[in-house]
């Protein structure tokens, strides 16, 4: 995945067919994991905290649903050629949506792996499911990095 051009508020990326296929799969199958409960504070003892946390979790769930719907609109049309690179053209809003989806996948996999301190594969048990989650986490990170790391 490579940033080809940036002009007039759009970003144009070139992806090889494998990358395009993988990105489509990620978008098609998002979300992969459950949304864990979110905390709004670590120290505040205010009795309203529970209510605030409920609102936060509802808002996050709603946002995720929107991401899912918007993500499907970003699917890359299949090219007839198996070799030719494919183009992904995003405006600023679409780019943010894709970024959030990818990071949601990355964080979701990390949570599913038990929130390990180390990202090295040695720190996980090697069940097939855990290995798959580890690969998925890295894949999402790969796309994230190429989406915003080339500016």
């Amino acid at each position, binding site marked *: 995945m490579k940033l080809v051009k940036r002009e007039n508020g759009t970003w144009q990326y070139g992806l090889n067919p494998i990358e395009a296929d993988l990105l489509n799969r990620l978008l098609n199958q998002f979300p992969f994991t459950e949304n864990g409960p*979110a*905390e*709004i*504070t*670590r*120290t*505040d003892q*205010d009795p309203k905290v529970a209510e*605030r946390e409920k609102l*936060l979790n509802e*808002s*996050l769930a709603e*946002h995720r649903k929107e991401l899912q719907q918007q993500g499907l609109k970003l699917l890359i049309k299949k090219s007839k050629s198996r070799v030719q690179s494919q183009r992904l053209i995003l405006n600023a809003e679409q780019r*943010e949506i894709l*970024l*959030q989806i990818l*990071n*949601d996948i*990355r*964080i979701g996999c*990390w949570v599913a792996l038990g*929130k*390990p*301190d*180390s*990202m090295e594969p040695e720190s996980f048990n090697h069940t097939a499911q855990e290995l798959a989650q580890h690969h998925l*986490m890295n894949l999402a*990170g790969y796309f*994230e*990095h190429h989406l*915003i*790391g080339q500016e």
Partner: protein
Amino acid sequence: MPSVAEPVTIPRPVIRKQTRSDDDLGPTYYVICWNDPVNLMVYVSHVFMKIFRWNKQTADKHMREVHEKGKSVLVREGAEKAEFYVHQLQNYKLQATMERAE
């Protein structure tokens, strides 16, 4: 020929009545971003720039603080605005909370 200065009328300053939102009256909160080993550094900076409209230098400074010190106080705001920022940051999956300022 000596010139005669014309009288100048100085306009009276307009004193606008200050209005205060509920946030000004209640306690204030620190919006804190906590470190985790999974969010990419470039991503964290990007989110700070997006949400707080900071320049890259400020965003990177806070990102490094999160990474090196375990947390960074991003802003100090009233309850409503602090809560808004926490929602925004958590939508991006950053570990952010609001903690009451002393």
